[in-house]
């Protein structure tokens, strides 16, 4: 893979920071490209080399697993397992199919976790598209987990912080691809600018369609503004079997209503204080006669 230019860690969005975010000022932005990872599910052989590379590069604790009648290494993601290849065995047109999903953070352009986070700077989105958790600022409330439409972040009971894939931001920053991309033996994972990856996905989808996968599609959901980890899905009509939500959104109804109510909230509290002050100025204290003499 050709050496990529170092990507910009200029901050695009920051959790719980009043708008307009000062870091959005044009002066410090580089207008550098967004990067993306493209997972071609049709090329994955299920070797889990990416899982090992992820653990190794990010120095994550190895967790004992158990046999639960699956080729999957662990039952679920955890605060020490940021990447999990999920295997689902289903029948498609009478044939047994192994549907594999690389379960990790999708690095949404509209990150539900970041919008849900109450701690300033605990979640940041860099200009290069990576959504990163900064545990120094994390207060352990876990609201990001509920804000994520893909159920990705995981809470550590030990550190009382939340963790997830950081797209190997320390590699990307200096022009290297993420560890999982580097290690994949079948080139099922590609890395490059978002534009290049969308173009590449188009070619891959066309090729799959030529091979008879007529529902092949690119998974880059609009409800979260697109993602920086995208999938080429051979059976695009069976997203649920891949455990991919059909229409994920960064701001489900309740959170959108909450944001609206918060706009009113402080104003109403302020009006309450002003109202009582005005009442006092108009009517003053109501003093009992004996009280005055006292």
């Amino acid at each position, binding site marked *: 893979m050709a050496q990529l230019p170092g990507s910009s860690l200029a901050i695009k969005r920051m959790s719980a920071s009043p708008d307009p975010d000062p870091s959005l000022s044009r002066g410090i932005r580089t207008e550098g490209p967004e990067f993306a990872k493209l997972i071609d599910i049709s090329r994955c052989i299920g070797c889990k080399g990416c899982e090992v590379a992820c653990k190794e590069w990010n120095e994550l604790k190895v967790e004992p697993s158990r046999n639960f009648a699956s080729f999957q290494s662990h039952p679920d993601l955890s605060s020490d397992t940021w990447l999990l290849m999920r295997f689902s065995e289903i029948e498609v047109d009478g044939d047994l199919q192994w549907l594999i999903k690389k379960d990790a953070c999708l690095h949404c352009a509209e990150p539900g976790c970041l919008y849900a986070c*109450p701690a*300033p700077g605990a979640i940041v989105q860099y200009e290069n598209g990576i959504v990163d958790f900064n545990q120094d600022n994390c207060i352990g*409330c876990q609201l990001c987990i*509920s804000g994520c439409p893909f159920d990705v972040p995981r809470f550590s009971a030990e550190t009382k912080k939340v963790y997830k894939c950081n797209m190997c931001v320390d590699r990307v920053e200096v022009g290297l691809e993420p560890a999982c991309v580097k290690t994949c033996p079948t080139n099922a994972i590609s890395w490059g600018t978002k534009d290049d990856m969308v173009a590449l996905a188009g070619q891959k989808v066309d090729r799959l369609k030529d091979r008879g996968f007529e529902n092949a599609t690119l998974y880059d959901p609009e409800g979260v503004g697109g993602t920086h980890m995208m999938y080429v899905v051979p059976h695009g009509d069976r997203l649920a079997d891949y455990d991919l939500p059909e229409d994920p959104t960064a701001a489900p109804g309740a959170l959108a209503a909450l944001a609206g109510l918060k706009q009113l909230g402080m104003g109403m509290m302020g009006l*309450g204080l002003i109202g*009582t002050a005005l009442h*006092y100025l108009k009517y003053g*204290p109501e003093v*009992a006669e004996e009280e005055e003499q006292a």
Partner: protein
Amino acid sequence: MSRIERFTYFERVVHWTLGLSFVYLLFTGLAFSHPRLFWITVLSGGGPTARLLHPWVGMLFSLSLGSTFFIWAKDMRLEGDDRAWLKAIRAYATRQKDGVPPAGKYNAGQKLFFWTMTALGVVHLASGIPIWMPAGVLGLGPFYGGTVNVMRLLHYATTLAGGLLLIVHVYLGTVAYPGTLGAMLHGHVSRGWARLHHPRWEKEQADL
């Protein structure tokens, strides 16, 4: 000057446990809800400590709210003149006392305040627990995702209603009606105060 006992020692302890925990919860809650107010968490030992303490103080709040229910529920039953009092609430607020039926130990406004706060408190506790322990508790849950998001909306909405009522409560209990705060501090009011604000109750009370 003759004095009447209005609140017992136990009532005052419960009230201030409730009141101070409410203020702690309101301010840390506002810090979590409004980024511009996040600095308030510093007063509670920083973000992680505030997140840890908020639910436990909430337990204290719920416990004292439950106690107020047992102390005051009987006195707070709406009856007789209360409907007429509520109809005259505008006259009450603008100090036109002639049109307002004389109140007993608590006027209808105080009674409604009590019941509204109790109801809000129940919703608050119920919505707070899934946010506190999203991984689940007592065999319920996990609550991650939609449940937590809906509970956050409820938790905030009840805070807003309770916060507004608190502003009115503190205003009326302090500067608007001098002598009222003393009832909750040392437990006593003057006979004049009682005659002015709670005439029916005053008639029933003997001097201390």
